[in-house]
């Protein structure tokens, strides 16, 4: 059994190396955010929370943060009905142009974000909504919608395909069958998708860069703008805020759906 033992050693080495590589940037940025010095460095110089308190006082960052929150919420709220209905429709009903619709809905995956960003900027400009904040949420919903559809589709495909018939057989008219059987059945997928959409919108940079200006700038764009001037540890602190939000999302997912289910869904 020497062979299997050395195989184990090799595998574990690779696993730990990968884990380290994946988490190193995060660990470094968390460390750097607690520095008491004036530049981003690792290991940090001393320990203080001064950059976090400074962050709290910086109105620019605070309002950018709130705007990002607003945009992400719009994106999530629009994507829940749109993505859920699209996924259920595509998986369950014999629709004409089924494949075409499917390809069309997944198209945002294949188009470079630069292209969609530019396109939406021109389009929003034409219909005179560029410069407002809510269209940014809409745009983020459009580019990330495939993730929502993917998450709900996985849940729909996991359901028994006779479930709606069973509901009808029990005496439920179609609408009632949808709300009492289909929707609760795919809820894990909807929650997974919604959290994913929120995080993706919260982090989105490239398309937001096209669609925002100084008055509507969102947090990722705002961070980008400040690293172009001077890199101070408050950026590391902002990054940690991001990490915390992502972590909360994962915890929520585990609480509401169970991570196991999420990881199993294809």
């Amino acid at each position: 059994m020497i062979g299997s033992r050395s195989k184990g050693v090799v595998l574990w080495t690779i696993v730990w190396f990968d884990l380290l590589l994946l988490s190193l940037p995060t660990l470094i940025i968390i460390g750097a955010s607690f520095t008491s010095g004036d530049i981003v460095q690792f290991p940090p110089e001393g320990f203080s929370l001064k950059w976090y308190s400074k962050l709290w006082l910086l109105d620019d960052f605070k309002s950018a943060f709130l705007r990002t929150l607003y945009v992400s919420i719009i994106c999530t709220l629009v994507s829940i009905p749109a993505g859920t209905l699209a996924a259920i429709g595509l998986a369950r009903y014999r629709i004409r142009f089924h494949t075409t619709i499917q390809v069309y809905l997944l198209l945002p995956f294949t188009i470079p974000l630069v292209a969609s960003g530019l396109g939406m900027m021109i389009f929003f400009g034409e219909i005179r909504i560029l410069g407002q904040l809510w269209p940014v949420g809409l745009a983020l919903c459009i580019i990330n919608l495939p993730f929502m559809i993917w998450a709900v589709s996985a849940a729909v495909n996991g359901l028994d395909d006779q479930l709606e018939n069973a509901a009808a057989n029990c005496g439920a008219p179609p609408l009632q069958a949808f709300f009492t059987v289909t929707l609760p059945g795919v809820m894990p997928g909807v929650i997974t998708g919604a959290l994913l959409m929120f995080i993706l919108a919260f982090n989105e940079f490239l398309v937001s860069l096209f669609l925002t200006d100084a008055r509507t700038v969102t947090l990722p764009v705002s961070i980008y703008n400040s690293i172009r001037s001077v890199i101070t540890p408050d950026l590391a602190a902002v990054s940690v805020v991001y990490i915390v939000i992502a972590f909360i999302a994962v915890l929520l997912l585990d609480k509401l759906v169970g991570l196991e289910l999420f990881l199993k869904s294809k």
Partner: protein
Amino acid sequence: MIKPVTQTSPLVELSNVSKRFGKVTAVDNANFSLSQGSVLTILGPSGCGKTTLLRMIAGFESPTTGNIRINGQPVQAVPPYKRSIGMVFQNLALFPHMTAGENIAYPLKMRRFSPQDIPGLVERYLDIVRLSGMGERRIQQLSGGQQQRVAIARALSFNPDLLLLDEPLSALDKKLREEMQLEFRRIQQQLGVTTINVTHDQREALVMSDEIIVMSEGAIQQIADPVSLYRQPSNRFVASFIGLTSLIRGTVEDAREGKITFRTTHTTLQGQASERFRFGETVEGAIRAEQVRISTDIKGAEGMDNILDGVVEQQIFEGDRMVYQISCPALGTAPLFVFDHDPSHHTPHAQGDRVVVSWKVRDLLVYPCQKYRVSNP
């Protein structure tokens, strides 16, 4: 609106029902009726149209042509949720986000039973399917057999006119399946609910039904009670689908009504037929494995009509019986299957042994050889 159901009016009645999907004919001109309180099984190989027939009765599909009547009323325009039909689905289709009790209560809520009555009815039906006290369990916490029981209770809790079973037992292992067959029978008799069961399992059909419909390629082949179906199959398909049957092909030499003499590869055989044949017509004789006697010499074949020499090709020990596959030179390549019961009292025949096989004329049933389509009664 409500038509009184008399003893004579059938609960379900299908007349000339056909269903086509594009160019494929799933159900071809089906006619039958089902009286109150009886159990009907639709038996056939997969893809024979039996499930389509069931789905049309449930209302999930509508017939391309023909009429379905339930309680004497045409149901063409009645959506599934307005039909008083309970169904147990092939994969059960239990609602995964509800408990066992909530599943059973669901049809009661949807059909607007009074809220005070619902808990009592749920308890009653949990009791009927022997799951008392398990109403709080989640579906995933129940075993396969328990899930079956929940599905039965859900299909019955609102006291439907008709119960449909779409091969719900096919996924279970043999022992559990046989146990559940008896359970279905017990519950059906306790409640007296009219039932249509769909299956490809001939044993299940024989055990559970008052009446059996055999289907093949969309067409009904025979409608009969289990005993008549087994004893008097109306055509070659039914004869070979139910039981272990050997088929022997030949041409008619003498075709008097009832007794047919036909020539096979190297001999002539006599058999029983219920229809007329012309001289020279190609026919197929069907003989059940339990009607053939196997012996070491001619003495064992005393009193039999057709006697042939053969060689044991294969023998399978099944515990309560031996199954022999015999090749008879006189029959050409067609194998002959023989059951021999109680093998412990005599030495079984070994592979390669020369044996004598024999049977009575009345047990060899003769059918026309061409593909058989039955005109509906």
